[in-house]
């Protein structure tokens, strides 16, 4: 029996078709993955179901039926009956989805009341539902407020609420994106187990094809509002056919196997405004194997095997097979140069607040005494989950925070105290690339003045012509078009912003870059472009890198050495290949096990750990 069926569904914003010809069937008890990068339209489907389309968007064609009822034309009242009772949602941001001023218990109670549960048994039902999620001591959890819980715990509460009504369909929109890898593994484990036990049908929306291959039975790959490939999850990931699916997988650095240079596609996915100029295949402008016919007319979604369909011509599919094989091995690391950065037993302690008697509460050891040296041309990865102190480490290195212990040396000169002399030493050697380009780029500066900002520092006297020339050189080096010189950050795409961010750091020709989670907000294909850019910079400039990330696969691809941090402490460090192939510390092992493996046949997630 089909729980959800879409036939030629079309959503438009003005003349632009945001979703075009989306068709699928989702049978009872199955998990369908909707995979796409940002802007692919994957969240739009969930919004059609909830009838929560943004202003100006409307369903303009096709049908979407739930258990035989058309969700597009259904009246408001019966639809409200369906939502919550028969269709439940798991949101992306667990912390904002719960009301911070109400206890978990009260919100759960209200939710059950909405579902029509009698008052008498509600508390017991809530406790039972939370216990099913392996949450320890659910009764006391009900008395707590959302802000007293971690993101993972909030998400589990929301999952318990979603399953509470015994819905026929659950829509989960990026339910694990805001969480750490090990939490993600837990959540996925729990959702799958509940889904199996209750026979619930699940629509799983994600940007992570590899995660989808382990969670879902079937996958729809979306690109610019079109389904480009559809089929059983394992088959799609083991043997992708569409050039985009292939490129997406090839852009995702693997956690095992040989390190091949990541395949990148040029540019980014077209936005809404560009759809009108793309009458044919929307992937054609970036397609490595396109032929002229593709750009003229959209190829239909053809069945190529039982249950598998691809929106591409036969000729292209043949040519696409060559994409991944053509990838050269990752360039070997050059021999490292002299030591640029040396940390000796550096630590950072944040003192606690004083209470009203003036007594200090216990503080936090954000970074416990730690040694680290980085040489020119060396890429060192710092990995750990949120709260491990890795961002504090970056701030200590850059002098944005003062160390409470130990010694920091740059080029052999002591810069522990960030006085003007130390700032000059740092300025010539170190630069930082910030995590969030939205916050790191001043919206009031055009690109040319952003990336050459260092030239107006101090008493620097540079002519306007010199600055523009430098800006052009930096743009070229970071693979950006000189057309961007006069643009402002708000007019750039996410990938372009991050390149501008890197270009700014390169302006003073540093020998070491400190990069804090610089690819975590980017789509996989854009992330691959940035990673390759960093490798190219090393080859051309012999630059070193301290790369802070929670993504182990990215660190493995990029870094020669890795430092694993937990609660401000280094638990393991060493040569990347050695650490990842034979992790010694249980925490490193747990982190590695939490990453969805490339091989879709390897069972994942691992068996659940103890309840949190």
């Amino acid at each position: 029996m089909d729980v959800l069926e879409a036939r030629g569904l079309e959503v438009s914003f003005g003349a632009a078709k945001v979703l075009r010809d989306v068709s699928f069937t989702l049978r009872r008890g199955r998990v369908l993955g909707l995979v796409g990068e940002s802007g692919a339209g994957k969240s739009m489907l969930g919004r059609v179901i909830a009838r929560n389309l943004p202003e100006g968007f409307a369903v303009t064609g096709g049908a979407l039926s739930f258990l035989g009822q058309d969700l597009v034309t259904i009246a408001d009242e019966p639809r409200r009956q369906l939502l919550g009772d028969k269709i439940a949602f798991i949101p992306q941001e667990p912390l904002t989805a719960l009301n911070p001023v109400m206890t978990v218990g009260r919100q759960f109670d209200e939710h059950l009341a909405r579902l029509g549960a009698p008052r008498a048994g509600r508390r017991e039902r809530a406790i039972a539902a939370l216990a099913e999620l392996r949450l320890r001591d659910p009764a006391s959890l009900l008395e707590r407020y959302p802000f007293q819980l971690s993101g993972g715990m909030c998400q589990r509460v929301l999952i318990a609420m979603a399953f509470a009504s015994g819905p026929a369909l659950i829509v989960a929109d990026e339910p694990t994106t805001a969480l750490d890898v090990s939490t993600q593994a837990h959540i996925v484990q729990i959702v799958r187990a509940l889904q199996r036990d209750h026979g619930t049908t699940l629509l799983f929306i994600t940007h992570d094809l590899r995660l989808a291959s382990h969670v879902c039975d079937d996958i729809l790959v979306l690109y610019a509002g079109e389904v480009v490939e559809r089929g059983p999850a394992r088959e799609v990931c083991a043997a992708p056919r569409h050039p985009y699916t292939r490129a997406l997988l090839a852009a995702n650095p693997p956690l095992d196997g040989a390190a091949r240079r990541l395949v990148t596609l040029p540019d980014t996915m077209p936005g809404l405004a560009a759809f009108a100029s793309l009458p044919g295949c929307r992937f054609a402008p970036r397609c490595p194997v396109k032929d002229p016919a593709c750009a003229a007319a959209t190829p239909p979604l053809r069945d190529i095997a039982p249950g598998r369909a691809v929106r591409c011509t036969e000729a292209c599919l043949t040519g696409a097979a060559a994409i991944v094989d053509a990838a050269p091995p990752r360039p070997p690391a050059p021999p490292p140069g002299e030591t640029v950065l040396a940390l000796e037993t550096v630590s950072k302690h944040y003192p606690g607040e004083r209470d009203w008697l003036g007594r200090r509460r216990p503080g936090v050891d954000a970074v416990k005494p730690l040694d680290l040296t980085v040489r020119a041309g060396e890429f060192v990865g710092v990995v750990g989950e949120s709260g491990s102190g890795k961002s504090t480490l970056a701030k200590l290195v850059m002098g944005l925070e003062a160390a409470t212990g130990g010694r920091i040396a740059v080029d052999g000169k002591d810069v522990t105290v960030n006085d003007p002399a130390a700032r000059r030493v740092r300025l010539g050697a170190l630069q930082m690339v910030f995590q969030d380009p939205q916050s790191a780029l001043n919206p009031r500066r055009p690109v040319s003045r952003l990336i050459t900002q260092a030239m107006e520092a101090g008493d620097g006297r540079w002519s306007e012509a010199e600055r523009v020339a430098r800006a052009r050189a930096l743009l070229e080096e970071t693979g950006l078009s000189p057309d961007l010189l006069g643009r402002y950050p708000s007019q750039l795409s996410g990938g372009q912003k991050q390149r501008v961010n890197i270009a700014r750091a390169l302006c003073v020709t540093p020998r070491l870059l400190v990069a804090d989670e610089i690819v975590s907000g980017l789509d996989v294909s854009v992330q691959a472009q940035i990673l390759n850019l960093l490798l190219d910079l090393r080859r051309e400039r012999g630059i070193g890198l301290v790369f802070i990330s929670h993504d182990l696969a990215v660190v493995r691809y990029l870094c020669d050495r890795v430092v694993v941090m937990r609660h401000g402490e280094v638990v393991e460090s060493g040569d990347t290949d050695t650490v990842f192939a034979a992790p010694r510390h249980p925490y490193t092992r747990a982190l590695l096990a939490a990453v969805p493996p490339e091989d879709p046949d390897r069972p994942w997630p691992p068996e659940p750990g103890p309840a949190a």
Partner: protein
Amino acid sequence: MTPRTRAALRRCLASPRVVIGLALIAAAVAVAILAPFLAPHDPQEQDLLNTLLPPAWAAGGVADYPLGTDSLGRCVLSRLFYGARVALYVAALAATGAALLGAALALVAGYFGGWVDWLVSRLVDIWMAFPPVILALILLVGLGAGVNKVVLAIVLIDWTRFCRVLRSEVIVVRRRDYVAAARLAGFTHAQTILREVLPAVLPLLITLFSLEMGIAVIVEAIMSFVGLSVEPNVAAWGVMIADARQTMNQAPWGVVAPVLAIFVTVLAFNLTGDGLRRALDPRLVTSRGEA
């Protein structure tokens, strides 16, 4: 001009509040500057044969005195025009001074934080605990009367408005990574404050500035009403109200005219300020889905 500035400007000019407010302010400024050409009489010229004349359109009015005369036979319209000079002079100068002092302290406090911030914040707290009118009177008694003393008094009282509001905005901006990036690019603290932080709080500063001009007009009127502002031989709106107060029963227009002038001017500044706030405040802009 950045696209952000252009969009902000477009939003400002699409706001009826800003357009009406600016038009009224422009009219007031024009009247003040062109007073010697527009005014039918010298503001101090007395016509003792024609005292307490009603406006020209009322019974007994004379075309030569469009808004009538006061108890000394001085032309009300001419005094109104010249009075605009005093009002706008005080408004512009006092708002500028208060903005400069308040913004400077706010930038320093918000940017450096720590004990500097503590000190400035406590100073603002203490300062704001004084009733402003009493504080102004005390200051003027200490400083002596005079229009420039009024300006100084307003600056010394109202810098706290700027300081308190701007400081919290500076703290928000200061946490952005681009401020840290500027430091890492070698900017000095002064450069970082002036080139990275100040431009981000400028829209708020402009809004506050406009509202402060309105406040300054009222304060000046009160001070000249009690005779602590301009010399007695200078026409100011507060002076006109004070003069016409005795003869209010026979000639109410003598009070009504300057009160209306104050009302329209303050309304213009408040409309502009309110409109600018709605057009420039990022929170209000996003809530209407325009950004």
